[in-house]
């Protein structure tokens, strides 16, 4: 049996900001159903990696294959709708209601009709427990609620893979749980996810694979049990002992 084709295949990705090399030769693949946590210290290039995968930053070199096809040659709008993104600072559209936030992309990018877009939006708002707030505006919601709406907005585009860029880092501690809870149920529902996170509990318990990044390269990549109990690299060990002591275990 041949191995299933990955959704994303990143090879030799590099990103420089001027003379500063943020990503130095990153290669890995994301398969359907993977829940990959990307961990590492600040400045290790985790967020830049996600932003390059979604072309919010143009990679300096390297290639991204989406289902075997070069993402550069694909229609950007189509690629973006298949590779969704959830941001640290939510980035809800402040001029739209919760419902309109979740239908705008469907109508404008996927050309769905109003009824279909609304049904879909309400289905996913229900999944994240925010359907009751469909008429509220972002300014009227708490941080955790905003992030749940942002997740529903991304899901309504029917993405193949969802990128999460530190989704709980901007939240008050008591709201982290509600967002992680939603992400956990999405992972259990089979959504393919690539999550940059500082929540070691999530990385250890929910993800199927953990990537540890250090100074712009993947230092270690493997099963969460192996990485958290028996890290191979000294720098992984050092990082984990630092953050786990800090109590960031969810």
């Amino acid at each position, binding site marked *: 049996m041949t191995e299933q084709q990955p959704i994303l295949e990143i090879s030799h990705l590099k990103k420089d900001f001027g003379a500063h090399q943020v990503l130095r030769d990153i290669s890995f693949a994301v398969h359907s159903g993977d829940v990959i946590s990307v961990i590492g210290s600040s400045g290790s290039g985790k967020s830049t990696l996600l932003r390059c995968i979604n072309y919010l930053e143009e990679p300096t070199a390297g290639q991204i294959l989406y289902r075997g096809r070069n993402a550069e040659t694909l229609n950007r709008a189509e690629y973006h709708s298949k590779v969704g*993104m959830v941001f640290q600072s939510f980035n809800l559209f402040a001029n739209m209601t919760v419902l309109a936030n979740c239908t705008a992309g469907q109508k404008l990018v996927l050309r769905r009709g109003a009824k279909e877009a609304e049904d879909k939006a309400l289905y996913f708002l229900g999944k994240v427990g925010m359907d009751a707030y469909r008429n509220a505006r972002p300014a009227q919601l708490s941080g955790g609620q905003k992030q749940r709406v942002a997740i529903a*907005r991304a899901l309504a585009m029917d993405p193949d893979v969802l990128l999460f860029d530190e989704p709980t880092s901007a939240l008050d501690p008591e709201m982290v749980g509600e967002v992680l809870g939603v992400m956990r149920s999405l992972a259990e529902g089979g959504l393919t996810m690539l999550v940059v996170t500082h929540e070691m509990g999530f990385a250890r318990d929910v993800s199927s694979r953990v990537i540890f990044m250090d100074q712009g390269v993947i230092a270690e990549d493997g099963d969460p049990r192996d990485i958290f109990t028996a890290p191979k690299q000294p720098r992984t060990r050092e990082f984990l002992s630092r953050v786990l002591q800090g109590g960031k275990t969810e």
Partner: protein
Amino acid sequence: MPTTFWGWVSLLIEKYGPLFLNGTLYTMLIAISGTVIGFVIGLLVAIVRTIPVSPKDPVAKKAGLKLASFLLNVYIEVFRGTPMIVQAMVIYYGAMMYLGLRMPALGAAIFIISINTGAYMAEIVRGGIISVDKGQKEAAHAIGMTHWQSMLHVVLPQAVRNIMPSIGNEFVVNIKDSSVLNVISVSELFFIGKSAAGTYARYFESFFIIAAIYFVLTFTVTRILRLIERKMDGGRNYTICGSQSDSEATITIHPEGEVPND
């Protein structure tokens, strides 16, 4: 002939009332058209100047945008850097003497005030676009919207709301500054005031009336704009739909300090 101030005022109103009214209409027509057309010009200029350029774009696109941006900068600098009264003389008499174009005074006035306002509006709109949090634009791109879609549906609605006070300011300035267009003999308020004053040589009384009319105009306009801004903000109340027992139930939330039925 009257001997008191109020006597003169009432005589002037009696004789020139319809003309004052006409001048008021002209002033408002010039100010409203100038602000609206100027806003459209400003919007277009700001949109062109914020088109993103990626290093991978073709050379022709990059060069074209660079040239457009340069010309628009020249436009903004020239029209912000010279008085409108001078622009009026140069454009009106320049067109007449060198293009053989005799512009109707009202049309010329609206044209001049529009391009003058456009130069200011371009900077105001640019400020408004910058004021919208960059993250929302990224989020729009991340769900596949194009530059134009994200501008039209996400950035500009918020930018326009944010610059409403400045747009209102331009409108009020236009009501007052349209008075300088009397140099091209358009019969706006100041021009009417001058003619009325000249007949009896009663400058103080005549311009007292004109000043009162200007003030009523600007004061009313300011209040109306404030109302429009509040309308644009929408209600602060919102409804939570459905409950565990009744999916049709709704609860309306009134943010603290807000009176229900607001």
